[in-house]
C-alpha cells in the first residue's frame, strides 16, 4: 500500500492522530491480562503482513512529521545525538544497514544506488537525494549515524561490545521514555539500567545481557517495552521534564481518553558487521486510550494490567498518581469476559463489549 504521510505535531497543539490502519497495527504489548518483567526476546525476522514487525525498520504514516519533530529537538539541544570517537565505524555500519533495508523493503520510497564506495541515496518522503563516499566522513553533512537517524523513526543506541558487556557509546535519542543520552553516554548495560526497579533483583538484566552479547550477524532480535504518556509527546526527556512534567496533572475524567496515551517501544537488536557493535533501535508508537479501547480485547486487557501492576512499576513508569483516574475510565471497557491469548487484536473472533 502507499502510505499517506500525515502532517501533524507532537508538541504544543498536538495534532497527532492515528488512522484506523495505524490503530489496528498498533503493537499492543500485553500478551496476557497481567504484566511482569521478562526478557521476552524473539527473533526479528518479519511478521504478519502489514504489522509493525514485518519490515526491518517500519515506516508508517507518522514518518515525515516525526522526522520534523526530531529536527526541532536537535536544533534546540544537539547533545541528544552523540557518538564517542571510536563509534564512527559503527555509525557507517548502521547507515548501511538502514539504507539497504529501507531500499529493499520500501523501493517506492527509498532507493540506494551503489557503485563501489560511491553511493547515491534517495529518500522520497523527505526529498533527499545525496551522493557520498561510503566510509568517508567528509562526504556527508553529519556523521553517518546522525545522517541516517535523522531519516529513520525511533531512537537509536549504538552499543560497543567489550569486556563481556555492552557500552552506551553512541546514540540518537529524541523520543525517549525519560532517560538522558547525554547523562548515560559511556555507561555499561547494568549502569544505564540502574534506575529500573525490581528487574535487577530478578536477574532480568543478567539474562538479557547474555542474550544480547550473543546476537550474531544476520540474526536480529526484538522485544516490546511500554510506558504511559499524557499527550502524544515524543520528546519526554529528562532535559525538558521541568516543562512537560506538569502536563501529567492536566488529565480530567472528560479528556483522559484523548490525552492519555499508551507508549510502546518496539526494541530491536542488530549485530553490526565491521565494528562488531550492537545497534539497539527503540521505536516509539503512541495510541490514545480512546483509540485503543475501540479494540474490545485490548480495552478489557488494558484495564486489568493497569489495575494489577505493582506500585513500584506504576511509580517508575510515572503514572501512579493518575492510576485511579485511568481505572475509572478503563473500567467501562472491561465487561469481565475472558480475553484470547497473545497480543493481536483478534477483531473477528473477540466478542464486542457487553454494555453494562
Amino acid at each position, binding site marked *: 500500500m502507499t502510505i499517506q504521510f500525515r502532517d501533524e505535531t507532537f508538541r504544543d497543539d498536538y495534532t497527532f492522530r492515528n488512522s484506523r490502519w495505524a490503530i489496528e497495527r498498533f503493537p499492543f504489548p500485553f500478551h496476557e491480562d497481567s504484566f511482569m518483567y521478562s526478557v521476552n526476546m524473539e527473533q526479528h525476522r518479519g511478521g504478519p503482513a502489514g504489522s509493525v514487525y514485518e519490515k526491518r525498520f517500519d515506516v508508517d504514516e507518522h514518518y515525515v512529521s516525526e522526522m520534523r519533530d526530531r529536527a526541532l529537538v536537535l536544533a534546540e539541544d544537539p*547533545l541528544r545525538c552523540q557518538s564517542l570517537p571510536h563509534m564512527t565505524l559503527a555509525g557507517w555500519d548502521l547507515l548501511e544497514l538502514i539504507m539497504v533495508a529501507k531500499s529493499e523493503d520500501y523501493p517506492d520510497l527509498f532507493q540506494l544506488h551503489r557503485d563501489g564506495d560511491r553511493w547515491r541515496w534517495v529518500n522520497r518522503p523527505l526529498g533527499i537525494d545525496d551522493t557520498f563516499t561510503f566510509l568517508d566522513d567528509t562526504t556527508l553533512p553529519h556523521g553517518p549515524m546522525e545522517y541516517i537517524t535523522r531519516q529513520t523513526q525511533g531512537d537509536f543506541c549504538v552499543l560497543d561490545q567489550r*569486556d563481556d558487556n555492552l557500552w552506551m557509546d553512541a546514540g540518537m535519542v529524541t523520543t525517549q521514555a525519560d532517560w*538522558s543520552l*547525554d*547523562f*548515560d*553516554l*559511556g*555507561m555499561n548495560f*547494568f*549502569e*544505564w*539500567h*540502574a*534506575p529500573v526497579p525490581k528487574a*535487577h533483583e530478578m536477574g532480568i538484566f543478567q539474562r538479557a545481557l547474555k542474550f544480547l552479547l550473543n546476537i550474531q550477524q544476520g540474526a536480529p532480535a526484538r522485544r516490546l517495552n511500554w510506558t504511559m504518556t499524557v499527550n502524544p509527546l515524543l520528546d519526554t526527556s*529528562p*532535559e*525538558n*521534564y*521541568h516543562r512537560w*512534567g*506538569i502536563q*501529567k*496533572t492536566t488529565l480530567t475524567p472528560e479528556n483522559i481518553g484523548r490525552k492519555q496515551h499508551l507508549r510502546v517501544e518496539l526494541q530491536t537488536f542488530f549485530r553490526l558487521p565491521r565494528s562488531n557493535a550492537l545497534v539497539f533501535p527503540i521505536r516509539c508508537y503512541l495510541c490514545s486510550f480512546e483509540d485503543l479501547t475501540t479494540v474490545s480485547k485490548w480495552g478489557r486487557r488494558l484495564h486489568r494490567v493497569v489495575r494489577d501492576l505493582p506500585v513500584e512499576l506504576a511509580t517508575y513508569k510515572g503514572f501512579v*498518581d493518575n492510576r485511579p483516574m485511568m481505572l475509572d475510565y478503563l473500567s467501562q471497557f472491561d465487561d469481565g469476559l475472558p480475553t484470547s491469548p497473545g497480543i493481536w487484536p483478534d477483531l473477528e473472533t473477540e466478542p464486542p463489549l457487553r454494555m453494562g
Partner: protein
Amino acid sequence: MTKFDFPPSIKSRPVWGTLQARPGRHHLFVADAEGAQAILDVATPDLMAGSHIIYVPRGADHADALRALEPAQFHEGPSYAASVPRLRRALQDAKMGLQVYLAGTEGVMGQAMAEAVAAGIPHTAIQTEHRGSTARRMQCVHCKGITEDVETDPFVCAHCGLNLFVRDHYSRRLAAYQGVRVDAEDHGNVPEPRGIYE
C-alpha cells in the same frame, strides 16, 4: 577518622574501595582534603620512590605529612581546577602500567578518574578511597550546570535556580550525580531539604 559507610544503592552509583599498593614502576596519586589520610595509610618507602602526588588541601592540614613521605614528586594545588593541567601533563607521557590512586571527596575522585579514563586507563583499573566530606557533585539535567559540594536533598541549582532532587544515578563521564526538578509535576511544592544521608 572513621570512614563513611555508604548505604547500598543502584548499580550506576560508584563503589569506593581501599587503596592498595599495586605492581608497577610509576604511581600517580590525586587526593583532596582528608584523602591524604588514605595515602598515608598505604605509603611505603618503596611505593613512594616511584610516586607522584597531586594534593589539594581544601583547608585540611596534611600537606606536610605527605611531603614527609618523600614521594618522587609532590605538588600542592590551590584547587582541583588549578591542578588539572599538571594532572594532564603527568598522564600525557605516562606508560601503560602506570597505577592511579584517587582519594578524598567524590567530586575530586570522579573528575580525576574522568581524566585518567580519557588518557586510556580503564576505569576498573583505577583505585579509589573515599575520605572526608560526603557532599556530592551534581549535574542539573535541565540546564546541564554543575553544582559542587551538595549536601542536601533537594537543593537549588546554582545556575538555573530550579529545585532539584538528588538521584543516585551517576555518570562517570560527567563525574556527577543527576539532579532533576523536584516540583515538575506540582510547581512550588518543594519538600524541606534534608541531609542526603539522613
